[in-house]
C-alpha cells in the first residue's frame, strides 16, 4: 500500500543563530533554556527549543509570534564580540512529516539513521534531505525537517512525488 503519512509545510518560525561558548551566551541572554550538553540534542523550555547543532553553534527555535520579544531579549546588535547572535527566521522552511510511515518517507531523502535507538526524542541534527542541507528533529508522531527557504518549493514537490 502507498505510504501512510501526513506532510505539512509549517509557517515561519522565529529562529536565531547563536555562536560562541555556551557560558558566554548563557551569561548574555537569560531567556535561553538550559544549554544541551550532548552534541546534536535539544532542550525545550516554555516553547523555546535550543538545538546544539555544532561546536559553539546553536539554533534557537520558537513561535514566530515571539520573534520581537526574543530580539529584545537577545539584543543581537549589542552582543559582545565573544558571541554572535543573528536572526535567521526566514532562512529555513520546515516540513512536518507524521504518520505510521513517516520514518520510511524520511529514509527516501535523509541518510541519517533515524532508528529510535540512535535518534532519540531529543535528537536534532543537520544532515541531508534530498541532497540539500537540512535540519532534522523529531516531533509528535514523526519528524520536522527544515531546508534553506529558497529550496522549499522544490522539497514540497519531491515529497509529493515520493509519496505518490
Amino acid at each position, binding site marked *: *500500500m*502507498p*505510504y501512510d503519512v501526513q506532510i505539512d509545510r509549517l509557517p*515561519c518560525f522565529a529562529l536565531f*543563530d547563536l*555562536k*560562541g561558548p555556551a557560558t558566554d551566551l548563557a551569561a548574555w541572554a537569560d531567556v535561553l533554556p538550559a544549554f544541551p550538553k550532548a552534541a546534536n540534542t535539544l532542550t525545550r523550555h516554555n516553547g523555546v527549543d535550543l538545538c546544539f547543532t555544532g561546536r559553539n553553534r546553536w539554533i534557537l527555535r520558537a513561535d514566530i509570534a515571539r520573534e520581537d520579544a526574543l530580539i529584545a531579549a537577545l539584543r543581537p*546588535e549589542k*552582543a559582545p*564580540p*565573544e*558571541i*554572535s547572535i*543573528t*536572526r*535567521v*527566521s*526566514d*532562512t529555513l522552511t520546515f516540513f512536518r512529516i507524521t504518520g505510521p510511515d513517516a520514518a*520510511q518517507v524520511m*529514509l*527516501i531523502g*535523509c*541518510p*541519517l*539513521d533515524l*532508528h529510535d535507538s*540512535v535518534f532519540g526524542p531529543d535528537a536534532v541534527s543537520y544532515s541531508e534531505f*534530498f*541532497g*540539500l542541507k537540512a535540519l532534522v528533529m523529531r516531533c509528535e508522531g514523526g519528524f520536522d525537517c527544515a531546508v*534553506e*527557504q*529558497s*529550496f*522549499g*518549493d*522544490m*522539497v514540497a*514537490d*519531491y515529497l509529493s*512525488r*515520493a509519496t*505518490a
Partner: protein
Amino acid sequence: MPSNRMDTGGRIDRDRPLSFTFNGRRLQGFAGDTLASALLANGVRLTARSFKYHRPRGIVGAGVEEPSTLVELLGDDASGNRPATTVPLRDGLIAKSVNCWPSPGFDMGAINQLIGRFIPAGFYYKTFKWPGWHLYEPTIRKAAGLAAAPAAPPEQGHFESRFAHCDLLIAGAGPAGLMAALTAGRAGLRVMIADEATEAGGSLLNRRLTIGGTPALGWVKAVVDELATLPNVTHLQNTTVWAYREHNYLMVNERAPDNPGLLERNWRVRAGQVICATGAIERMLVFGNNDRPGVMLASAAQTYVNRYGVRPGQRAVVFTNNNSAYAVAADLAAAGITVAAIIDNRTDVPEEARTLVEDVDVLAGHVVTGARGARQVRGVTIAPVDGGASRQISCDLLAHSGGWNPAVHLWSQSRGNLRYDDTLTSFLPDQAAQDATSVGAANGQMILADALGSGARAGADAAGITMPDIPTSADLTYAITPLWRVEQGRGKAFLDIQNDVTVDDVHLALREGYDNVEHVKRYTTGGMGIDQGKTGNINIIGTVAMQQGAPLEELGTTTFRSPYTPVSFGAIGGLREDSVVLPYRHTPLTAWNIKNEAFMYESGARWRRPGYFPQPGESFQETVNRECRIVRNGVGVYDGSPLGTFEFKGRDVGRFLDHIYTNIMSTLKPGHGRYGLMLSDDGLIIDDGVALRLSEHRWIVSTSTGHADAMNSHFEELLQTQFPDWNVFVTTVTSQWNNATICGPLARNVMQALGTDIDISPAALPFMGFADGHVAGIPARLVRVSFTGELSFEVNVAPRHLPALWDKIMTAGAPFNIAPIGSEANHVLRVEKGFLSLGHEVDGTVDPYDLGLGWVMSKKKTDYLGKHAVAIRRSGTTNRRELVGILPQPDQMIPEGAPLTPGGERRPTEGLVTACVYSTVHDRWVGLALLENGHSRHGETVHARLKDKVIAARVTPPIHYDAVGERLRS
C-alpha cells in the same frame, strides 16, 4: 504438444494455470513457474540462437547463471535481455528470443555457422579494414546488441531509492544465510537479509534434503515465519545485493516492493557487518558441442524436477567430475526420467555417491567427447579418459557438472582477496578487506551441515553470543577431480556459451601472444556477456592454465565488477531525477514574476530568475532595449535577493577581511561600505563584492550570487584551519536579507513616494553608504550600491516582507512609469559601464591589473591572498590580455566569445570579445574584449573573426558610459 510436466511435486500451484506467449506461440504454465520451467514443461527445447554463430541453443541453467536463453519481454513488463530462468511467469506474459530473426527455429543469422571457421576470436581486428570500417560497421551493429532498447519510460509507477542502516546485512537466504539471520535476529541485532529468488531456501528449494529429520523446506518455512515475527529483522526476497562499496556501503535492489506505486526500490545500506551467503554456481564441462539444446547444468535439471515438477528430458546421461551430480541422477530417476548412464572422469567413484544410484550404469574414468544432434541433443559420444575406443549413448538430456564455484562476486567487490583451493578446485574467499565474512557454499562449505554451521557461527560472532545448536542434516560429501576441458573429440567446445567463445579461440589468443588472462578475456570477449561469465570464466582460466602449464592461483581471476546481476537504471536513480538533482532556488517574487510573464531561466547558482519582461508584440531585443532605457532615463526595479550575504562578527573581522580582500577593509568606518576584490592565493580572481561595517565588530559581506557557497567554504576553511584563534564568526544570511533594487535617475523620487524614515539625501546617504530604518513601513536596510551605473537604492528586507514591499514599489513607482528589470538588461547596463562579470571578463587567466583594477590591489599591505602570486605571474608573462572596450565598425553585433585575430586572418587569437550589447545610450553596439596589451592599444582597429566574415572594431577604454561615475553617486 508434449507435456513434460509431472503430475505431482514441485513448488508450483497446479490450480493456477497461467497462459503466456513465447515467440508467437500461446503456451500454458502454472503459478510458481519461471518462463524457463514453463517452456521446458511445454517441451520447447530450442529457445535461443547464439550471439556470433547463431547456433541453436536451449536452456542451460535455472537461475541468474543462465548463459543461453535471453528473452525480451513485451507488453506491460517490457524489458530486454532477461534470462528466461529469472522471469517469474505471469498470466499474459509475452516473450521472444533475442538475437535471432525470424525465429530461433529458422534463423537467417545461422549462415554464420558456415563461415564459422574463418571468423575466429578477434577476426575483426584483422579484416574489415578496406576501404574503411564505416562500410561494415552498420551491419555489424545491427547483428550485435541482442534485445531492442526500451522505447519509453514505464507508464505507471515510479522507482524509489532509500537509505537504510543495519547492524548486519546478510546476502542470500539459503541454509547458511537463514541460519545466520535467525541466530543474529534472535540475539536482537538489526538484521537485513536479502535474497534474489522469489522465495527463501536457496539450494534447498532445488534439492531433496532433510533438516532435523524432516524435509528441509519445512525448516525453511519455520525460520522464515520466525524472522517475520522479529521487529529487528528485515527480510527481503526478490532482492539482489548487487554492489559492495567502500566502508560497508551496499546496494540492494528490491524488484517487487509491497508498495503498488513502486516498480523497484533500491536500498543504499550502511551495514555494521556483512555476511556473504551467496551460495555457489555450478560450472559447465567443456566438450564438443556442449552447447546443444538439451545439454544442461546438472543442478538445473535437478531444479526443474524438484522445484518446478518438470522433466527436462525423458532419457538422461549425466556427465560429472564430482559427487553432486549423483544426487541429481537420483532425483532425475525418482522423477521418472531414465538415467542411461553417469559418465565420471574419476576412475574411482566414492561409495557414498555410487550407492545413491545403485541401478544406474556408472562409467568411471570416462568422459563425454561430444554431444550429437543438431537442433537438440540426441546422444553423446563417450570415451575413456586415457583414450581408447569411443562409443555412443542416446539421450535427449545431458546433465553435466564441472563442479562448483563459490559465488565470490560480492566478496571480491568488497576487495576481499581470494585463494585457489586445490581440493575444491575453485577460488575461495581469503582475507577480508572490510567487516565481512563469507559462509556456506560461498565460502566452500559444500555440505549442508557445514553450511548451517558456518551460518550459525557467523551470526553468533556478529551478535557476540555463543554458538547455538545446529539442526541435524544429511548430505553428500563434495569430492571433485578437476576437468577443465575434454581434450578428445570434435566439434566446437564452448567456454562461454553466451559470447560463443570456444577452446580454439583461447588457444588462438595464447598463440598470438595475448597470454594474460585479461588479454584472453578481451581478445576472445569471454566472460563479457550479460551473465559476465558466471558459468564459464573458471574454465577459461583452467584452459589457459593447461596450455601454459601454470597453476591457476598464479593466473588469478579477472576482476569481479558490480553489479552482480544487471540492475535497471531507474532503480539506481530512484526519485533523484531532473529538479531533484539540480534543485531550483526561488525568491519570494517567483510567483509575481511568472504572473507578469517574465521569461524565467536558471541564471547561475540554481537561482531561477526573470531574464526579461516582454510586452505584447515585443521582440527580445526590443524588450531589453526598453528595460535599459527605463533605467537610464527613468526608474526600474529588480530583485537582487540571490546575492550572497554573510554576517561577520568579532574583534578580528577587519584583520580577516584585510587578508582575503586585495584592498584594505579594516579602515572602513561604521555606517559605510566598500567595494573589494578577492583572489585565491595563487592569484586568480575568485569573487568581488561589497563589505558594510555595521558597527565596530559587526559586518555584512556580500558576494556574487554564483560564488556564495564557494566563498562560505573559503571563509570557514581559513578561519577554522589557519586562524583558529581569531575572533571571527560567520553566519550566512542570504535568505534572511532579500532585496529590491530601485535604480535610475528617478530612484530617489520613488523612495520618497514609498516613504522612509531614513534620510536619503546624497549628503546623508552617499554612494556606498547604508542605513537601517523603515521603507514603506517595513523594517529595511537601505544600501547605496549600484550594479547599473545609475543612482540605486538597494532595499533589503526579510523575505516574508518582500512581496509586500514589491507591490508597494510598483504602486509608488507607477507615476514614474517604474518597471521590473530582468537579468538581460542588467547585463547590458553593466557592460555599458565596463563593470566586470565573473564568467565573462574573468575567465581564470586575467588578473586585476589586466582588468584595470590595479587600484584595488593594496600597496600598503605586505601580504594578502594572491598578492605575491599576481606579482610572480606578471613578472614571468608578457602580452597579457587586457580589458578594453570595442566599437564594431560598421555598427553591428559581434557574438560574445568571438576571437580577435591579427587582421581577422586564420591565425592564433590575440584576444576575444567578452561581451557585446546594444547600447540604448549610444544607439549602437558596444562591447568589451580581452586584448593582448589592450591598455596601450586604445584607438587601434582590431578584427573579430567569425566563420563567415570578419568584423572590424575600434578599441576604446572599457567604460562606455559615465566614465567619471557622477550618475551612480548622484
